[in-house]
C-alpha cells in the first residue's frame, strides 16, 4: 500500500488525507470570498455558477424536508461541497482524495449523526424525541427500542463505509491500472521478448491508457458526484425523519411520496 501514496505533498508529520482536506477547504473558501460583499442582483460568471449549485441543493431540501428545512442549507451544502470536492481531488494523478481515508468520512458521518439528533431534540424536546424510539404502542417498547437503537447506530457506520469504500476502491483500481501500464510498457521496451513483445506490449499499454481515460475516468467522475449526492440525500432524509416524527401527518415533505425531481430553476 505504500506505493499508493501520492508523491506530492510530503509534508512533515501531517498525514496525506489531512493535508488534502486543508487544500479542499482552501479551494472552497477561495470560491466563497471571490464573491463581492454585495452580490450583484443579476448574477454573472462565478456568482451565477455558485447560485445554480445552491439552487440545486435548495430544491433537494424542499423536496425532502420541506420549506422549513431551508435553515439547514449551510450544513447540507457544506457537507455536499466538501465531499464532492474531496472526491474530485482523487481523480488528479498524484493527489489523493481525503475521503478515501476512513477518518475523513467518519468525521462527516459523525457530524450528520449528532446534527440530526440535536435537531430532533431541539424541535420536540428531550423526552418526546426519545419516546418515539418506543414505537407506536407502549407494549411494543421492549422490541422496538433495541431495533431503533441498532438502526440509528448503523446509520453513521453505513455513511462512513459507503463513501470510504467507493473512494478507496476507485483509488486502488486506478493505481493497479497505472502500475500495470507502467509494468507492461517497461517489459515491452526492455526487449526481453523481442519485436513481438514490443508490439504486443505497446498495443496493450495504449489500450490500457485508452480504457482508463475513456471509461474509468468518466465512471469515477460519476461515482464522485453520486456518492456526494447520496451522502447529502441520506443526511436530509435523517433530518426529515427527526423533524417529522412528531407531526408526520400534518406536515409531510411537500406532499411527495419520496425524493423527487428538484424544483426547476426559476431565474
Amino acid at each position, binding site marked *: 500500500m505504500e506505493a499508493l501514496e501520492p508523491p506530492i505533498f510530503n509534508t512533515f508529520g501531517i498525514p496525506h488525507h489531512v493535508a488534502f482536506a486543508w487544500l479542499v477547504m482552501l479551494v472552497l473558501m477561495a470560491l466563497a470570498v471571490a464573491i463581492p460583499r454585495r452580490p450583484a442582483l443579476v448574477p454573472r460568471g462565478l456568482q451565477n455558477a455558485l447560485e445554480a449549485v445552491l439552487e440545486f441543493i435548495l430544491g433537494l431540501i424542499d423536496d425532502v424536508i420541506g420549506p422549513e428545512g431551508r435553515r439547514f442549507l449551510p450544513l447540507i451544502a457544506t457537507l455536499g461541497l466538501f465531499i464532492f470536492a474531496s472526491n474530485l481531488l482523487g481523480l488528479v494523478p498524484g493527489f489523493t482524495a481525503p475521503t478515501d481515508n476512513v477518518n475523513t468520512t467518519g468525521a462527516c458521518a459523525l457530524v450528520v449523526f449528532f446534527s440530526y439528533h440535536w435537531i430532533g431534540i431541539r424541535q420536540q424536546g428531550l423526552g418526546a424525541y426519545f419516546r418515539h424510539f418506543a414505537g407506536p404502542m407502549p407494549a411494543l417498547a421492549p422490541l422496538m427500542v433495541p431495533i431503533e437503537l441498532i438502526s440509528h447506530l448503523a446509520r453513521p457506520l*453505513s455513511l462512513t463505509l*459507503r463513501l470510504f*469504500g467507493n473512494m478507496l*476502491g476507485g483509488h*486502488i483500481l486506478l493505481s493497479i491500472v497505472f502500475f500495470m501500464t507502467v509494468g507492461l510498457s517497461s517489459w515491452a521496451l526492455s526487449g526481453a521478448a523481442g519485436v513481438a513483445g514490443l508490439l504486443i506490449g505497446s498495443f496493450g499499454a495504449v489500450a490500457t491508457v485508452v480504457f482508463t481515460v475513456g471509461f474509468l475516468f468518466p465512471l469515477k467522475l460519476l461515482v464522485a458526484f453520486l456518492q456526494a449526492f447520496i451522502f447529502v440525500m441520506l443526511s436530509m432524509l435523517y433530518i426529515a425523519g427527526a423533524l417529522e416524527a412528531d407531526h408526520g401527518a400534518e406536515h409531510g415533505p411537500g406532499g411527495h411520496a419520496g*425524493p423527487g425531481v428538484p424544483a426547476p430553476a426559476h431565474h
Partner: protein
Amino acid sequence: MRILVTLLGVALGLAEGVAQAQGEAAATGSWVGPFTVVAAGIGMAIAAGLCGLGQARAIAAALEGMARQPGAAARIQTAMIIGLALIESLAIYTLVIAIILLFANPFK
C-alpha cells in the same frame, strides 16, 4: 448427492493445500491467515453477484415505470439512482472487509 460429494472433495483439497502452504508459513499459531485470502475472494464474488441481481431488479422496475408514464421519468430516475447507490453500498461493505483482509490482515 453428486454435488455434495463434489463440494466435499473441493473443500478437502482446499484444506490440504492450505495446510501444506502453512506448514512453512508463520509459526505464530495463526492458522487463519491463508484462509482469509480465500474468504476475501469468495466473499467479494458472492457480494458482487448478488448486488448485480438486486440492481437489475431495481433498474427493470424503474424502466417499466418510465415506459408506462414518461412524464414521471425524471422523478423515477432520481429514485432509481438513489436505490442503486443503496444496493451497491452492501457490496461496498464486503469490499471494505476484503481490503482489510488483504492489506491490513489482523491474522498475519
